[in-house]
Structures are given as structure tokens and as C-alpha cells.
């Protein structure tokens, strides 16, 4: 395995806001990475840094072993699909697909045509007149058909309906299987993509919270449900990620449980349920913060 992307102590400040805060990680070749986090967490800034579209305040970036900034040798192997992609006013989708091969040496026109049919994209309508979903479809098609060795999708499917999103996932998996490449996918629809991901990066307030294999994240948290007394006794010496309750019942999310822990919970009459990646991200980037805020004010 070799690293396609390496970032060390990467920091980007805008005035007194630190959008990316001392982040270090690497991305292995030919994997699908999920870059997850809340709005404003720093995902887009991070991707702009990695694609040479923005300058780091501090830290170092290596993409294919080189600095990506103004580096055509690196950038011709990189495709960055962003949510807010703009096109010239008079552009129609067919202009996009005609010009894409100039930038992407691996462009597959036949694959693009198939995707255009899948997404039912009108080629000769002005882009300004397209719906939000159709606009997103253009980005998705460029991202897939470019077959760039390193492809970034930043929230690629704003406005795409459920059918179109499923087409995106299916085509991505099929084509990735036949033409392995490195994909970094940023999305809020975590439940929909969690099985596609091999590795997960979670950032919050510019900091990297999780950098782990998707498989090892599965089962890394469990929700324990039962009577308040029972649950409290069970979680007494554990780190609690989240706590909910109603009447005499409590529902508490804790970290990884051993088979012995599970057996003990069963003996105590407690119910255990797995925590999905989406719930885990919600709990790590949402409630913990309000809890610490409460503790501080208390």
C-alpha cells in the first residue's frame, strides 16, 4: 500500500477562524474514503487545500508525493467535484462533456454517455435552466467518467433524488471495481454510503476526530437500554458518548464492548443495540459538545 495523499500538521486560518486545525493523515491508494463532519467543520477547505485551490497557513501536503499547488503533473490526475461548481453562462451540458477530456486524460466518453442516459440529463439545455439535481448530475458524471486516479466528491448530490443517488453509488462501485482509484467522498448522507467506505475521516471544528477503517468503526459503539438503575450500574466506569432517558428507562451509548460485557448485559436484562456510523458521527460531533458546555457552565 502506498499513500496518495499525505497531510501533516495542516492548518488554514481565515482571520481569527481556524478552518483546518493541525490535521495530519494519509490516504492509501485505491481506497474509498469518507470525509464526514457537520456544516462548517472544514471539509471543503481541507479538500481545497489538497487540490491546490487554497494555500495552507501552516503544515505540509503531498499528493502523489508532490506539492499540489500549481503542479500540473499532480493536478491532471486529480478531479475535484464540488457542490458549488460554476459554469460559463452560455454553457450547456454537452459543452462540459466536450471539454472534460481536455483536462482528464483518462476520460471515458462511452461511460459518460451511459451515465447521461442513466441520469436522463438534457444535453442541449442551458445549464442556467437546469434543476439543482440535474446540475449535480453533471458533476457526478464528470467525477465518474474522468476516472482520475484521485477523485474528490464534495457533497456531490444536492438535489439528486433517491433513484439518482442509488445510480451514483452503483456506478461508482462498478467502475471502481473495474478501474480502481482513490475516491474521497464528503457527504451528510452517511447511512447511505457507510457500506461503500473503506476508511472514514471525521472532522469537527477543523480538527480530525476519527481516522479509522470503516470495518473497525463498526461495533465501536453500542447503545445500552434498560432500567435506569441497571444501565447506570453497567456503564458506571465507562466513557459515555450519549445519554437519553424516559421515566425509569435509560439509553446510554458507550464504546466497544467485549463478549464478556455483552454476556453481563444480557444477564442484567439490558438490551444492546449497535450504533450506525451516522449515529456515531452525530454523537461525536453534536451532543458531546453541548454536554461539555453544560459541564463548564455548571
Amino acid at each position, binding site marked *: 500500500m502506498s499513500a496518495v495523499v499525505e497531510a501533516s500538521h495542516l492548518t488554514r486560518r481565515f482571520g481569527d477562524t481556524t478552518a483546518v486545525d493541525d490535521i495530519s493523515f494519509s490516504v492509501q491508494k485505491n481506497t474509498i474514503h469518507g470525509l464526514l463532519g457537520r456544516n462548517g467543520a472544514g471539509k471543503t477547505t481541507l479538500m481545497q487545500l489538497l487540490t491546490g485551490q487554497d494555500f495552507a497557513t501552516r503544515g505540509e501536503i503531498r499528493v502523489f508525493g508532490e506539492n499540489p499547488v500549481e503542479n500540473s503533473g499532480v493536478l491532471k490526475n486529480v478531479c475535484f467535484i464540488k457542490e458549488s461548481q460554476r459554469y460559463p453562462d452560455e454553457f450547456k451540458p454537452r459543452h462540459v462533456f466536450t471539454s472534460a477530456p481536455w483536462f482528464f486524460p483518462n476520460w471515458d466518453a462511452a461511460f459518460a454517455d451511459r451515465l447521461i442516459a442513466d441520469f436522463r440529463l438534457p444535453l442541449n439545455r442551458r445549464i442556467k435552466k437546469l434543476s439543482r439535481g440535474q446540475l449535480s448530475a453533471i458533476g457526478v458524471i464528470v467525477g465518474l467518467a474522468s476516472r482520475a486516479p484521485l477523485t474528490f466528491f464534495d457533497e456531490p448530490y444536492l438535489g439528486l433524488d433517491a433513484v439518482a443517488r442509488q445510480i451514483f*453509488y452503483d456506478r461508482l*462501485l462498478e467502475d471502481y471495481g473495474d478501474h480502481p482509484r482513490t475516491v474521497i467522498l464528503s457527504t451528510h448522507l452517511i447511512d447511505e454510503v457507510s*457500506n461503500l467506505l473503506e476508511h472514514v475521516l471525521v472532522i469537527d471544528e477543523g480538527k480530525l476526530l476519527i481516522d479509522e477503517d470503516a*470495518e473497525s468503526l*463498526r461495533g465501536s459503539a453500542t447503545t445500552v437500554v434498560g432500567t435506569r438503575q441497571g444501565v447506570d450500574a453497567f456503564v458506571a466506569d465507562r466513557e459515555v458518548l450519549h445519554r437519553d432517558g424516559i421515566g425509569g428507562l435509560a439509553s446510554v451509548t458507550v464504546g466497544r464492548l467485549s463478549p464478556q460485557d455483552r454476556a453481563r448485559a444480557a444477564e442484567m436484562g439490558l438490551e444492546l443495540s449497535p450504533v*450506525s456510523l451516522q449515529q456515531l458521527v452525530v454523537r461525536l460531533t453534536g451532543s458531546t459538545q453541548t454536554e461539555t458546555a453544560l459541564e463548564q457552565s455548571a
Partner: protein
Amino acid sequence: MDESRPIFVQIAELIENDIIAGALPEETQVPSTNEFAAFHRINPATAGKGVNVLVDDGILYKKRGIGMFVASGARERLVAKRRDRFQNEFIAPLIVEAEKLGIDKTQVIDMIRKEGTA
């Protein structure tokens, strides 16, 4: 897919189930890792890990340049393995639930008999 267990374990089990049910007869080719990945909508590396579990167990074997095949005797070995697990995975929880509901063992046995003749 079930959230509580690793996906590759579940993929291995699905293939095992197909072998046990006869949907994948011995000495036939199994779908490729990419086909499994596309069908179950999972990462191909994960699907590959599931297939490799079965290769390590000798249930599948690789023909170079062609693909994965079901080994001879695979079905019999899988059935034996599943029988070993039957007590723990099905009988033990059955007894726990029956006790919770105040159903004694004789009643459980009667129920099983009834189920068998129905």
C-alpha cells in the same frame, strides 16, 4: 446488512448459505469480488475480505486467471460446522426466552413436536 457485525463476516455467511442451500454447487465458480460488491452495495475490499475468509477455511479455492470456485466437500463441512453452532445460537436463546415467559421444557418440546407435524 446487520449493523452489529462486520460486513465481511456477513458476506462470508451469505456465500456459505448459498453453498449449503445448493445455490452454489461444488466445483462451480462463485461471482467475483466486484460482483459481490456491486450486488450488496459494499466496498469491494470488504467483499474481498469476506471471500478470503472462505479461501482460508478451504471452502473456496482460486483457479489462477479464472476466479473462485467452491471446493469439493465444502457443503458437508459447512453443514457440520453449522450443526455445532446450532445448540449455542438457537437452542440456548430459545430456553432463555421460554424461561422468561414461564414455559417449561416439556411445553417447549410439545411445541417443537407440533411444529414438526404441522
